[in-house]
């Protein structure tokens, strides 16, 4: 111990300070590292359960069909049968729980998400160049989204 004290004073103090920082860090690390850290990998194990606990915001097609059977019947007979209602109409769990809560009807930008011309899309998918194809008019003036092959 006496040899330790023979260190030059500034080095000794800095050494003590560094030791203090390491001790404080170790204590902080002990308390601040999340409990479930490292349970499965280098992340909080609890995060998985937390994510699973989140309230679903999508109700699913079956829930829509319970009340809106006409639209549902029209949809399943045509090309858009594989689409989910909520792909275009937005999330629906709140509306399914309480019909007074209105759905947020999304705008027509959704049509071109699939139908905008792109060489990367398969040929069988009907594609348009939205700027050239009746620019300025709404898609629904000419097309019926639930039964695309019919004319309004």
């Amino acid at each position, binding site marked *: 111990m006496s040899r330790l004290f023979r260190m*030059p004073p500034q080095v000794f103090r800095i050494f003590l*300070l*560094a030791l203090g920082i390491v001790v404080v860090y170790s204590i902080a*690390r002990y308390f601040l*590292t999340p409990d479930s850290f490292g349970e499965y990998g*280098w992340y909080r194990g609890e995060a998985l359960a937390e994510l699973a606990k989140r309230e679903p915001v999508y109700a699913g097609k079956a829930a829509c069909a319970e009340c809106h059977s006409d639209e549902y019947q029209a949809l399943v007979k045509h090309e858009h049968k594989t689409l989910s209602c909520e792909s275009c109409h937005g999330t629906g769990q709140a509306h399914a729980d309480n019909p007074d809560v209105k759905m947020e009807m999304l705008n027509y930008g959704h049509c071109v998400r699939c139908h905008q011309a792109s060489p*990367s899309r398969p040929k069988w998918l009907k594609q348009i160049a939205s700027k050239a194809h009746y620019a300025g008019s709404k898609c629904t003036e000419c097309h019926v989204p639930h039964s695309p092959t019919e004319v309004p």
Partner: protein
Amino acid sequence: MTNAVTNVVAELIPHFEGYVYPNEATQQPLWSILIVLYPYITGLVAGAFIMASLVRVFNVKALEPVYRLSMLTAFAFLLCAPLPLLFHLGHPERCFEVMMTPHLTSPMAIFGFVYAWYLMAVLLLELWFDYRRDFVEWSEVTPGFRGTLYRLFTVGVTDVSDPALKLDFKIGHILSVVGIPSAFLLHGYVGFIFGSVKANPWWGNALMPIIFIMSAMVSGIALCVFNYMVLSWVRRKALDMKCLDVMCMFLFYALVVDAAIEGLDWIHRIYSAEEGFQVIQYMAREKLFYTLSLGQVTLGTLVPLLLLGSLQLLRRRVPDLIRRRMYFASGALILLGVLAMRWNVVIGGQTFSKSLRGVMTYKMEFAGLEGWYMGAALLLLPFIILTVFVKIFLSEKLPSTAPLEPHPAHAR
């Protein structure tokens, strides 16, 4: 309402051109302006530190007036270096966890080690041993809060005898020698994060860490030139022209090496013309024209090379005033050019499709978390911190020992 407005704006710009995978056509790049600033700020730290070590390790006497300023610059910017990453993660309440759980299994998580080593073991220690004598003297003559602060910084050691100061100098020297590879490590590591992404032809390149280190040195020295000139102007003090000349000489040679290595990288890419080359060529000609050809190459490299290079030849014939203006212009242009270089690397690497046959568009937010305001604030913050440091540690009112006054026995 917001939804309608944003959709209109989004429809005005073309999202993509050419052959792009459907998921790439709609997404914005994951790494935005904040990740552009991260290597930029880190590079400034490494560069400013290397600039300071020119005095310590390589004994360049002419640069002594800027030694402390460069060290403080490195310190102020290092404090801000992790901020862009933490803001980008979007969970400020968990920001300390990256420091609590560093590990070696991912390049991003190594940051905890690299950062702690560089800040605690190198920069703070070197600054402390350099300032110890001043802290002791200042704490005796300064009253009030400031005096208490200086007393606190002495950590209770008041020994300023000759052998003690000699030891301080020796330790500072050793730390500086250790600091150079550490600065290379810090910034080489940032280059490695990009260079190790082998699926991306814009990034995956063994030269990347070296390019990053060289551009960091260039930007760091340019920042020191900029800070020194601004500080002297604010304090109405005459510039030490010899110091400025030498600083800009190093800036010129660092820029020559940097430009040569980046040029070599391009020559290699052009000659080998691997499968991703066409899209890289398109990016350079069209998408990144302003930031690459104009910003990085012309304004950030060629113009400063010309300005600084001509001054290397004609230094004696150019009057001081014009020389000062040319130096200032070169420093500012290089700072912008290196920022453009970081932009080209980070944004450029994400705006072409994985198909290598198409490109996407990056539309920067204005006021959002990853927008213009945030970027400007993050670039301004280190300068504000530096102003506080300069007020405390480079105060005009306090007698300062000549920076780095080695013990006579040690002087060469």
